[in-house]
């Protein structure tokens, strides 16, 4: 099956590849000062910059997704580093292209399902401000939290796909966008808006004021907002976020202009956690949140994110002459990001309410339908079931219990049992970019650019709350049983043995990651009869280093100090052509290759304790091509594209608690090969100037194409193993690989109405790499039905395909004195479909004990799942004055 679809994909690309030569219109019209607040559905072929911001906003407000491949047994370890956070994970790629209905629509349209265009990871999408890169150098991704609540201030954007010429970047496969933060580029006047909704936050107020470019050559713009929920739509969550943006620009003369902008969004918010279907069933809701519990009768959440990334941007625009323009920007940020998590010490019990031992299905094997439970087992099952059903408090954390346990220990001078730790991922970054745009003549233009960046990532944890305990000693509880409490091995910092930890003290791990990057690029566009030809190339050098501040007892010789510096040199080249096939049809073709350094996040083995790079760490290769046909036939505009992208030599890392060894474990995969391919289509039928119908489709696949090399290491280094990982055929998770939409737009007398029916399918969850290790899969078994030998590789969990209906209605009212009032109401998931997952993860645990005997609870049958939001509404009232 897999083979056939691969073949089909290749065939498709070969076919379209040979017929390609053509064009895409290059209308880079600016969207500066566009007033679109809330009016999501104005015209069918409308501008998309406004949409990209809506994409962001929609994402910000959809479920607080905390996807993690780390179902960690103890929260002692950082998931913050492990891809669980919504600011990083699962954000829709913000590609935008000016005339592309598909790209302009899907980001917003499919955002409730956390759709990612072409299923690309967000590290393949770059976000710039005034030409300088904002992406985080350690993880490669843009953190939306950086501009949270600054919708007005970040509205002006220019977007570019991978195979388009643009004035600011060598776009990665997922495209790039450039936010214009020059004070003069905001529409002069006041703007205020209020939002009410039932999502992560309940209310938002925003105010923006801009002077526009004044007679004296100055321009000032300021924006502030506040987002609030004492309890969001998910029980036990809250949202408390302030944001500011201040910018000034001085146009010195016709050639020079200097601008400065500073912004930040100090935010405190509580998170939702995933659960298994069994826990959802017991709680009676797919929106059950195990992260909170009662303390003194009040709800308290254990997982609270605190983030603040104060940023500063300086830009010098130099119009050298009427053919050449140089844009130079310097960006600096000091990002403070932390997440709290419960920890438990010594031999204290796992306090999480949905810990598997608490679930009814841990009483007997409910999955074996042939099995008749004993009377005791049934009684045990019922006791557990009734406990869950009895009261809400039973399904949640019990803070009072944790305080009590600590106070009991205090009475005896004992160690803390329960605590809340804060995992910090701070970052200091400085990026410089200089881009020269030259119009050689009417038909040729070129863009030279240089980007330099240096980043220091600081990773450590502190004691957020001892929950009333007097004593906490900084040792690794998992190693105590293996080495004894008095061994050096159990020390997290041998140089400060048995350190007593008070609140706000650093403990556990403390290290820095340094990343330096330099990128040079050139791209060129030439116009020929009926079309454009585009090519570009870049060369990129990067270095990375870990510097440890603690001498870890399990890695005494290689944890403190420097790891040494790894250097990578890479680069890429792209070629695109846009041509006219006939009067109605343009054809676009693009092909590119990139050799790219791995991200620092994936490059170290067990970075919390060790200074080691992944063995065989190499650049990854990305080959991509696409072809599209666009046709305009009277009132109908249709476009269909095919794409094929191949990733080879990639490195991926996961970290999890290994129950078999009672150890936190890292699994690094190298030699990863993945392919993303599919078709994208859009049709718009403008029946009248007021009424249009549209259809959008994204049908594709993204999957691993071969087995990877795995390297498994536990934190105590007792388990070190090289093994094959059966990844061949595993699908990329966390996005629907099939997304279809039918919609209608209608506007009349200042009213705008739109409705869409969307269908999603092929939604997979994160496959456990551990469960696919050759050593865990074990020897081939004889298949009962076929009698043939086969490997017992787990089947990846797939969510059900289903429909969702969205609609919005808006009105724009012109008031006296040039004022304008916009009102927009968006309704999402009107049918209140609560059965669609947006993602999740398989448990990294075995169904059998280390001696081979079967466990009662089946981890393989109980993946953690996230569900798309239930019916929700978003009302935005904006006033421009």
């Amino acid at each position: 099956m897999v083979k056939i679809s691969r073949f089909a994909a290749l065939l498709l690309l070969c076919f379209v590849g040979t017929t390609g030569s053509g064009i895409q219109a290059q209308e880079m019209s600016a969207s500066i000062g566009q007033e679109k607040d809330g009016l999501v559905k104005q015209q069918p072929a409308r501008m998309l910059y406004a949409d990209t911001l809506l994409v962001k906003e929609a994402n910000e407000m959809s479920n607080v997704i905390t996807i993690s491949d780390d179902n960690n047994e103890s929260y002692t370890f950082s998931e913050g580093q492990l891809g669980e956070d919504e600011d990083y994970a699962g954000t829709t790629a913000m590609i935008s292209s000016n005339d592309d209905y598909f790209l302009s629509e899907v980001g917003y349209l499919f955002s409730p399902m956390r759709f990612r265009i072409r299923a690309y990871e967000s590290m393949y999408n770059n976000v710039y401000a005034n030409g300088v890169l904002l992406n985080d150098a350690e993880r490669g991704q843009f953190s939306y939290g950086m501009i949270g609540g600054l919708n007005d201030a970040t509205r002006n954007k220019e977007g570019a796909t991978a195979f388009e010429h643009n004035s600011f970047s060598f776009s990665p496969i997922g495209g790039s966008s450039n936010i214009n933060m020059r004070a003069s580029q905001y529409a002069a006047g006041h703007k205020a808006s209020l939002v009410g909704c039932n999502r992560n936050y309940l209310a938002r107020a925003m105010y923006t004021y801009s002077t526009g470019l004044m007679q004296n050559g100055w321009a000032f713009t300021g924006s502030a907002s506040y987002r609030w929920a004492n309890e969001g739509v998910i029980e036990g969550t809250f949202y408390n976020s302030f944001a500011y943006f201040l910018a000034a620009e001085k146009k010195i003369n016709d050639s020079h202009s200097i601008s400065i902008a500073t912004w930040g969004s100090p935010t405190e918010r509580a998170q939702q956690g995933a659960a298994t279907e069994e826990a959802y069933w017991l709680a009676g809701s797919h929106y059950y949140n195990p992260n909170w519990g009662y303390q003194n009768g009040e709800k308290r959440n254990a997982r609270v994110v605190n983030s603040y990334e104060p940023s500063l941007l300086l830009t010098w625009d130099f119009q050298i002459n009427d053919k050449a323009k140089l844009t130079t920007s310097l960006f600096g940020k000091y990002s403070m990001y932390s997440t709290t998590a419960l920890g438990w010490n010594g031999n204290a019990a796992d306090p999480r309410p949905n810990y598997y031992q608490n679930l009814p299905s841990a009483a007997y094997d409910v999955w074996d339908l042939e099995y008749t439970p004993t009377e005791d087992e049934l009684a045990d099952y019922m006791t557990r079931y009734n406990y869950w059903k009895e009261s809400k408090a039973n399904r949640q954390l019990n803070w009072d219990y944790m305080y009590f346990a600590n106070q009991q220990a205090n009475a005896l001078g004992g160690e803390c049992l329960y605590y809340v730790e804060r995992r910090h991922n701070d970052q200091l970054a400085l990026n410089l970019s200089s881009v020269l745009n030259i119009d050689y003549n009417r038909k040729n233009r070129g863009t030279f650019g240089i980007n330099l960046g240096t980043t220091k990532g600081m990773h450590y944890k502190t004691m957020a709350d001892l929950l009333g305990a007097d004593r906490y000693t900084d040792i690794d509880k998992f190693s105590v049983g293996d080495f004894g409490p008095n061994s050096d091995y159990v020390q997290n910092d041998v140089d400060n043995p048995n350190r007593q930890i008070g609140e706000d003290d650093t403990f556990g791990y403390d290290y820095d990651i340094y990343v330096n990057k330099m990128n040079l690029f050139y791209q060129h566009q030439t116009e020929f009869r009926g079309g454009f030809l585009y090519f570009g190339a870049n060369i990129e050098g990067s270095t990375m280093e870990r510097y440890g501040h603690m001498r870890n007892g399990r890695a005494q010789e290689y944890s403190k100090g420097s790891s040494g510096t790894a250097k990578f040199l890479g680069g890429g080249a792209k070629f695109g052509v846009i041509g006219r096939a006939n009067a109605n049809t343009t054809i676009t073709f693009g092909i590119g290759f990139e050799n790219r350094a791995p991200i620092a996040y994936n490059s170290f083995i067990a970075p919390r304790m060790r200074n080691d790079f992944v063995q065989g760490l190499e650049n990854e290769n990305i080959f991509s091509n696409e072809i599209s046909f666009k046709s305009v036939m009277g009132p109908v505009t249709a476009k269909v594209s095919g794409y094929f992208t191949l990733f080879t030599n990639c490195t991926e890392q996961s970290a999890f608690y290994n129950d078999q060894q009672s150890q936190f474990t890292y699994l690094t995969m190298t030699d990863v090969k993945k392919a993303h391919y599919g078709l994208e289509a859009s049709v718009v039928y403008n029946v009248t100037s007021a009424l249009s119908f549209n259809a959008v489709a994204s049908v594709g696949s993204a999957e691993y194409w071969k087995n990877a090399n795995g390297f498994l290491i536990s934190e105590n280094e007792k388990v070190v193993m090289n093994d094959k990982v059966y990844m061949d055929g595993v699908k990329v998770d966390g996005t629907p690989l099939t997304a279809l939409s039918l919609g209608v737009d209608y506007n009349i007398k200042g009213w705008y109405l739109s409705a869409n029916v969307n269908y999603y399918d092929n939604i997979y969850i994160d496959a456990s790499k551990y469960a696919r290790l050759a050593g865990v899969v074990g020897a081939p078994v004889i298949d009962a039905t076929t009698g043939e030998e086969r490997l017992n590789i787990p089947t990846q969990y797939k969510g059900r395909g289903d429909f969702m209906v969205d609609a919005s209605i808006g009105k724009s009212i012109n008031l006296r004195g040039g004022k304008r009032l916009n009102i927009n109401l968006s309704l999402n998931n009107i049918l209140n479909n609560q059965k669609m997952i947006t993602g999740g993860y398989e448990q990294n645990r075995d169904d059998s004990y280390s001696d081979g005997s079967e466990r009662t609870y089946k981890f393989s049958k109980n993946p953690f799942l996230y569900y798309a939001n239930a019916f929700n509404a978003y009302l935005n009232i904006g006033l421009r004055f």
Partner: protein
Amino acid sequence: MKTLKYLSLIALSLFLATSCMNDHDEPNFNELPYNPPYGNNEIGDANTTISELKDKFASIISANGAKEVTEDIIIQGVVVANDETGNVYKQFVINDPTGAIVVGVNDVGLYATMAKGQKVRIACKGLYVGGYGKMAQVGGLYNGSIGRMNKTVFPEHVRLISTPSLTQECMRPEVIDDSYFTDANMAKLAKYVRLENVEITEADGTELWAPEELAYNNVVERHIKMGKTNLVLRMSTYADFANEPLPDGKLNINGVLTRYNNYWQFVISSTSDIEQVKEEE
């Protein structure tokens, strides 16, 4: 001027720090009257001693059976051994002046509430009492025999009486010597005892408490020679101190004397139960 006003408004808002939403009052359970947030604070005074309970179920216990307690029996004792270091698992032992008894609960980290020195009452009605290796145990039913009670059942049957203390009466073990090992005493186990001036046979300064390679079902048997009795010291490989060296020389050890059918056994719950005897010249 106006410009300045509007922008300064925005700048001003910079300094209006938004208040923290995640502040919660810290509950204090050490205040009197003692009102723990765990257990059943309705349970009344004890009406039965541990020894009386064992006597009532003597025939069930010696037959390794299990029987539901149907009378309103309430016992009271102090926790003398628990699972804090992992050597005892899913059990704890309470002691009153008449003896000690094992309580089985299907949960880990019991020491969070059943700290050493914690005075508790257990309302036995609805629980099971039975014999495991002919020794008395309070718990639940497991395949017709005595087992551990469900973790959600336990809090309904236990009441915590006061803040734990290691200095109270019931924390003082009876000192025994080899004359204690009689059949009559064996029938009344478990018992919280102190062994004085004893040596662990295997201790040589390097031998570990419970290395995995010596374990059978995760248990390693060490020995204490007391007169004619070679007392088995049961050690779990899961104990925190399993991979530490056995203490050498003369020792005073507090622990729980138990039986498995007709074998005497001895269990410690932590190395703090052991004290090195100072050699006097």
